[in-house]
């Protein structure tokens, strides 16, 4: 999973505490994929179990301190095999499994085949929702630290935002495309007419 690789890679330059790792991750990705504390420590303990990191115990073993507090005192460092894993991550392409808009594609694929689903309205609602998200990303891009990235972490964050922008844009273009094709199919009688108002006289072809 990418969180595991990302945390391991963040440990490459220098050892860190768990809470530091989380902060460094969010410095680069904003709140796009929020990490909870539990997730951070679960991931760290798995990385350690697999021999990719090890920890320095700087705790005054004052005994029964509660677990999260003790965990916060532990500093993690990467091992040689951890470095190997990081370099393998950076030199291997991410597999194209499970594109993020699968649910939408599936929903539409089912919707166009079912009578009684207003596919035109479905598309329009999705487009408006995605456009609203795109407006939010754009607002983040033109204000705040992504607008004038002078730190590498800020540049990273603005690139993550760009990725979200491109995804949303692609989804809207795909929805436009679906709408146009469905309208054509409806005009040719292959489909129940979608919800959008259809053209009158001017678009009706007069066939000889």
């Amino acid at each position, binding site marked *: 999973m990418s969180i595991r690789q990302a945390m391991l890679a963040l440990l490459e330059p220098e050892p860190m505490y768990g809470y530091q790792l989380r902060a460094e991750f969010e410095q680069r990705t904003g709140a796009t994929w929020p990490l909870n504390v539990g997730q951070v420590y679960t991931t760290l303990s798995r990385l350690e179990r697999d021999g990719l990191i090890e920890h320095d115990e700087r705790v005054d073993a004052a005994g029964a301190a509660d677990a999260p507090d003790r965990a916060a005192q532990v500093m993690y460092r990467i091992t040689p095999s951890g470095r190997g894993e990081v370099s393998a991550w950076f030199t291997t392409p991410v597999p194209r499994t499970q594109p993020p808009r699968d649910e939408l594609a599936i929903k539409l694929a089912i919707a166009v085949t079912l009578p009684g689903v207003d596919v035109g309205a479905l598309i329009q609602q999705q487009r408006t*929702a995605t456009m609203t998200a795109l407006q939010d990303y754009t607002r983040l891009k033109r204000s705040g630290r992504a607008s004038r990235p002078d730190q590498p972490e800020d540049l990273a964050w603005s690139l993550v935002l760009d990725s979200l922008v491109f995804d949303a844009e692609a989804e809207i273009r795909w929805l436009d495309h679906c709408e146009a094709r469905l309208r054509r199919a409806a005009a040719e009688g292959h489909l129940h007419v979608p919800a959008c108002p259809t053209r009158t006289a001017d678009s009706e072809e007069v066939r000889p």
Partner: protein
Amino acid sequence: MSAVVLHLDNVTRVHGEGPTEVHALRGVSFRACAGELVAVMGPSGSGKSTLLTIAGGLDEPTSGTVSVEGAVLGSLGNAGRARMRRTSIGYVFQDFNLIPALTAAENVALPRELDGERSKAARLLALAALEEVGIVDLADRFPDEMSGGQQQRVAIARAIVGERRLILADEPTGALDTDTGEEILRLLRNRCDAGAAGVLVTHEARHAAWADRVVFLRDGLIVDESGADVADELLEVTP
């Protein structure tokens, strides 16, 4: 306070008549407030340019009314509308519409001069507008000595010169690469943040996303809208 700068009330526009008539707009109500940038999206032929030319007083509605800063365009007469177009309304045409025999600065200064401004003062305003779009160094070039993106920026400078309250732009990023396109959007955005009302026609979602509101047009009707309507928000706030 956000004043309504542009208001279209139940506007229709029918081109031609009889069997060939085209209902380009079928009852569109629309407004843009000071400080607000509104994007209009829709497929080819949905009525975007028709809406914009009517908003700019370049075309007249078949029925319904258009007001700009409270003045109903239909009751202004030709001279009044022309004056409005020179002073209050900035229009960026899809194909730039620059005059080839005039330099960049002269093109930008033209609406001010037509409005009776002395040419020196008009040139100063033109240079300021060219500065704002980042090409003041090209002020004395002719359109055919400039790239498409540079001509586009001259066209935008002409639309913003002076204190235009309403800026209407029809696909202003048409032939531009993504970076230059983004610069143009930033510029429009800044103008609106400074108090103008802007309406932007675009087919690029990433550009529409710079707007406060995105209006979706289909076959001459507004079918949906994303983002908050400033005026509606105000209405909700007032007890």
